[in-house]
């Protein structure tokens, strides 16, 4: 299926519970329209964000990964986002050596109050991923073990 035009790509978001998850809630409460590609995983803090989760997702079939947490100085745990910023910046700069387009990974800060910013971030990032198109696959879907193919038929195309 890779290479075909896709109406929806696979974008995984990792959001800290206190700021960005709240910001995404705020955007929802305000009914700010957003593209539907993003699937959000809730973390307690971006300090919990292991760069390996991003790599796991990118090698596992995600077309884009978005991490969002509290603005600097606003971390619920005081310094989790500062730790995350270093780890994620290193990761962002590391991706090109793997041949992965660095635009497929973004980390940013959105507060619980910034519903409009969340909408802008999701929209812009989704647009970027659609411009880049489907990510190159490490494994051809047809070569993948059965368990990864299971579920392909759930959604009629």
């Amino acid at each position, binding site marked *: *299926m890779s290479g*075909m*035009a*896709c*109406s*929806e790509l*696979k974008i*995984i978001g990792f959001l800290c519970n*206190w700021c960005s*998850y*709240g910001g*995404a*809630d705020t*955007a*929802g*409460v305000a009914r*700010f*329209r*957003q593209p*539907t590609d993003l*699937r*959000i*995983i*809730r*973390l*307690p*803090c971006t*300090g*919990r964000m*292991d*760069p390996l*989760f991003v790599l*796991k*997702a990118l090698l596992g*079939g*995600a*077309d884009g990964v978005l991490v969002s947490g509290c*603005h600097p*100085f*606003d*971390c*619920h*745990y*005081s*310094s*989790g986002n500062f*730790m995350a910023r270093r*780890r994620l910046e290193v990761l962002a700069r590391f991706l090109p050596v793997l041949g992965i387009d660095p635009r497929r990974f973004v980390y940013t800060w959105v*507060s*619980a*109050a910034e519903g409009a910013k969340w*909408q802008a971030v999701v929209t812009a990032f989704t647009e970027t991923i659609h411009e880049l198109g*489907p990510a190159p696959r490490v494994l051809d879907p047809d070569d993948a073990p059965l368990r990864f*193919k*299971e*579920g*392909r038929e*759930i*959604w009629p*195309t």
Partner: protein
Amino acid sequence: MKIGVFVCLCGSNIAATVDVETVAESARGLPDVAYAKAEMYACSEPGQAAIRAAIEERGLTGVVVASCSPRMHENTFRRAVERAGLNPYLFEMANIREHVSWVSLDKAANTRKASELVRAAVEKLRCNRGLQRSRFDVHKRAMVVGGGVAGIQAALDLAEGGLTVALVERESSIGGKMAKLDKTFPTVDCSTCILGPKMVDVAQHPNITLYAHSEVESVSGYVGNFSVKVRRRATFVDWTKCTGCGLCMEKCPSRKGPDRFNERLATTTAIGIPFPQAIPKKATIDPDACLRLTKGKCGVCAKVCPTGAIDFEMADEMIEEEVGAIVAATGYDVFDPAACAEYGAGRHPDVINSLQYERMLSASGPTRGHVVRPSDGREPGTVVFVQCVGSRDLSLGRPYCSGFCCMATAKQAVLTRDHVPDAEIIVFYIDIRAPQKGYEEFVNRAREEYGVRYCRGRVSSIYRVGDKTVVRGADTLLGAQMEVEADLVVLAVGGQPSEGARALAEKLRISSDQYGFFMEGHPKLRPVETNTAGVFLAGACQGLKDIPSSVAQGSAAAAKALVLLSRDKLESDPQVARVNPKRCIGCGKCVSVCPFGAIRLVETRFGTQVAEVVEAVCQGCGVCNVACMDKAIQLDHFTDDQILAEVNALCREWRVAN
């Protein structure tokens, strides 16, 4: 595991743009899911009853609710499943309202997205395990940081509630900004007359220990068991001996030190008591102004002091306080209008700020209550008030409304009429904000009964011509340029977090917003709690507010702390990091990254080192989990396997083709 999935319609909030039946049907095809059903309102009593019934009748061992944000109802549902006998951590939520139904109208895409989020929740739940809360003892003592009116109220309520209280105040007297005010709006009653008795209560209350001229040095520990180091800054006067007689003040030859209480409108002695009603009423030496401390000469005060209280050798003292809860009430600072060069504050003598004017109006102030032009001491004929200086100004990075200045200006305009009956009084404003009880009426009285002229428009510049201060602005209602030759200009300055607020936030491990105001736990539902258990907020440090709101919040913070410490033991959040000692190699990376000092290395019986988490200190951020290379330390409820289960569940499906 036997999992039940409940997909909420939320009336039409979800059902309008998500096909909930399809979501429930897809859930039935997920591993371990034994039951899936759509519910009209899952959070309602009938909805919760249905969940409990399903757990009991079908023997469910795990529950997923797909509904609104977990930030909204996770606790609701945790309690519901707990009542049915399930461990509350064998529960997961999929947010299909705020993140799905409300942000897109594409029903097919929403349904697919909701189903995938449910699948991720189910896959995570399959990795969950029941967590147990542990219990620990608490100190039945509270600390209040900041002795303004909010802190005073909190301290008094806590003390009346039966707790002992340590009240820490940076200045040498409590009272805060309110002590500097002449009158308060909208009743125009004497500020000192209503605050004074409360200050005396603080001094006399047997449950309150007052540390004035002191600051919080460091905070460690956790809810119920904070250990706070308080630095008592050297006063150079032994307060146990000082009687507050004031003789030293009369004799002190250094009289050029800035009078901070009087907002630098005057100078004062190097030793002194800031104002007559000060609590504690004890003298303090300003080491920067004292001749003895700066030049080694003088020492007059020591000679005249009848009790021999002067001690030039005094050094800062550290005091360790063990408390169960902390109320932060550090108030605010006024905006320094020197940043707005066009208004001439600091350059033109007859341009002062509203707090300075307040001191001028006060009978105990530097002019003994006479309204005068600072330049020549003459009574002003025209007084201009400029509103929103340092508020609602994007160019200064202060888009917020300071809240109290409209009313303060109206009050000062009214008082000006009392002091100078013939004065022309003009207020430049952008909007008038007077939403509380009696406020709007007060402003109208100022306009109508006191003849205060309100001009809607921003002032563009203030400059000096001869001995007049010219205020140039626009009256946008008339559409006319205005130039007023004023004798006195009062800038209604806004507020900002008090100096050192960020540093205190770091010590308390609470967060602050982009301006530095402390963040409450929830803007609506947890307005005095912070996200650090056991730390509460009162007054303007959380956001600028007027006296009644500050007092209310002081009482509210006290009530929250009293509720917390009414229990003999507290339960800890079980979402904490846990070490697998077999895996741990004892490298200590977790120890060095933990923001709470919650991890330590201990020696095993084999002589090797392993990490150990102090459960009650751990706040559950998970920074350690990432730093650990062999993943020997795992954050419960957000373990690697739980997050990977979600990642895998979301990645597994290949893209949807057109």
